[in-house]
């Protein structure tokens, strides 16, 4: 008799609770309402504004431009495929006629589309971000563990942290041109300039948060380490790093956000390939579609920034030992 209710309650405990479900529903409804209000206001206000390039695009025009950009990308891909097809046919024909002939395989130099610019930007931002993290985390650990090093480096960190990417960019550009002179460069210079600018600007939150995380280890845990006579490396690996992980991730998330913002600005300013250049080119182009296209880019930049942050959050949840921690 009593077995059935117990089992039912067990099943219930696996399902999301009634309360949880209503809360989730409420939240989604509110988000949808927020977006709807935004789109409505946008539509209303856009038609009121006349610019030198015609009226400001509303949501419909922007959506149309999105399909236009997709179509452009598909067409470009088709051209590229056709190019390689022709090249292959030509080369096989040459080789059939004369098997000694030297055939050349040329790369396709097409115009970058919106989507290839997205890819370039993502690749660049991740390279810069990984580089920044690889510098900032070890440096943060070493500085955070030593009050003396902290006193020595803190003024420098405070000095460089607020420097705008626009100020770094000329210096990085000149330094890269001066120092990176190889006959067959592995990376394009413009790529390196973007990467280093991103690195220089996104380094600081990770560095500072790692320092704080490392220097605020509970004295009790430090005493455990001392009683056990852990050597420096074990101490860092088993005690310092894990207890600083939550702070390090807070820093990494801030850094990634900054990296993405900085990259777009740097690409615009330096005309380096990427989404920033796309926006700049459209701005210079000044056709009637340009404003809509820039709007598409703005939305996509926002979405990618959001996706990157969610990705870091997922990683943080996976790595963080403190599963009860509220992450948002």
């Amino acid at each position, binding site marked *: 008799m009593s077995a059935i209710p117990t089992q039912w309650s067990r099943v219930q405990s696996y399902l999301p609770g009634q309360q949880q479900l209503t809360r989730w529903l409420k939240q989604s409804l509110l988000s949808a309402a927020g977006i709807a209000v935004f789109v409505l206001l946008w539509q209303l206000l856009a038609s009121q504004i006349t610019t030198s390039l015609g009226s400001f695009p509303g949501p419909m025009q922007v959506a149309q431009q999105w399909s236009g950009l997709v179509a452009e990308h598909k067409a470009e891909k088709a051209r590229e495929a056709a190019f390689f097809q022709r090249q292959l046919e030509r080369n096989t024909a040459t080789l059939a006629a004369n098997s000694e002939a030297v055939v050349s395989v040329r790369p396709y130099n097409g115009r970058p589309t919106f989507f290839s610019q997205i890819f370039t930007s993502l690749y660049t931002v991740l390279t810069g971000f990984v580089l920044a993290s690889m510098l900032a985390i070890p440096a943060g650990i070493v500085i955070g563990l030593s009050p003396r090093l902290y006193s020595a480096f803190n003024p420098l960190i405070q000095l460089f942290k607020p420097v705008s990417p626009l100020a770094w960019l000329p210096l990085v550009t000149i330094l890269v041109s001066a120092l990176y002179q190889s006959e067959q460069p592995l990376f394009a210079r413009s790529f390196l300039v973007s990467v280093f600018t991103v690195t220089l600007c996104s380094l600081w939150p990770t560095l500072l948060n790692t320092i704080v995380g490392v220097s605020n280890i509970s004295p*009790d845990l430090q005493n455990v380490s001392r009683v*056990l*006579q*852990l050597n420096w490396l074990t101490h860092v690996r*088993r005690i310092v790093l894990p*207890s600083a992980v939550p702070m390090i991730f807070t820093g990494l998330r801030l850094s990634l956000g900054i990296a993405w913002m900085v990259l777009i600005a740097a690409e615009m300013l330096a005309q380096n390939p990427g989404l920033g250049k796309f926006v700049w080119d459209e701005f210079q182009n000044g056709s009637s579609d340009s404003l809509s296209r820039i709007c598409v880019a703005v939305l996509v930049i926002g979405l990618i920034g959001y996706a990157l942050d969610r990705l870091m959050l997922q990683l943080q949840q996976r790595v963080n*030992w*403190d*599963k009860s921690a509220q992450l948002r």
Partner: protein
Amino acid sequence: MQKPHLELSQLGISFPTPKGPFVALQNVNLDIAKGEFISLIGHSGCGKSTVLNLVAGLLQASAGGVILNQKEVNAPGPERAVVFQNHSLLPWLSVYQNVELAVKQVFRGQKNKSEMRDWIEHNLALVQMSHARDKRPAEISGGMKQRVGIARALAMQPQVLLMDEPFGALDALTRAHLQDSLMEIQARLNNTVIMITHDVDEAVLLSDRIVMMTNGPAATIGEILQIELPRPRNRIALADCATYNHYRHQVLSFLYEKQRKVEVLPKADAAKSPVKPAAKAPAKAPVKLAAEEKRA
């Protein structure tokens, strides 16, 4: 005459403060035999933890020293294992891994992998925590965490076990349970133990000697009470035992008559009823106050 196992000799320490050096301890002298169970009792802030940290090597004495087996110690080491008040388990490691960290460190090169595993499991069984070996500290109760802390310390096979109010933050029932466990383990392993407590019953029940400390600054040992109750001791049988109650009385009288601590009251209260608190306070109340102060 046989040399003592552990000797605190003319031990003193002063802390630098903005207002000049603060002498916390002075002339602390104590000889401890192997296998002896010592309790340190005294009002909050008198310097009990400081004594323990000096023995652990976590603090450096400014005068005198600590001698273990005729050798002076002034750095921490696993032969003087510490059970911390708030357990101090690494929250990112499971119960088993917490003990493992200590065992790997202490028995590196002496035990092979399977011997280490057996030893870790043996120590977890000793504190009755085998069932939770894969749980994280956040997933177990305060009493269980303290058990794991004790297992970690015991697994180092220390010559001296140092415990700073190990059961202070636990409810009375859990505390009684752990006290019984500790007595059993101590009977089996014959460890030398120094335990800080603010609980008079706990001190009398567990100890061979109770070391009572005077109030600071410049605190030192006030009295030492030898507890000659036969072991194994049973808390229920002892409740009616005259000798037991006599010992309790002696500790209480030391704490609340000889070393009565003048509680600093907020000004307004003090003006309204200047005599009341001291006169009215029941014997046990200040102990609780002291305990809560510590926890806050």
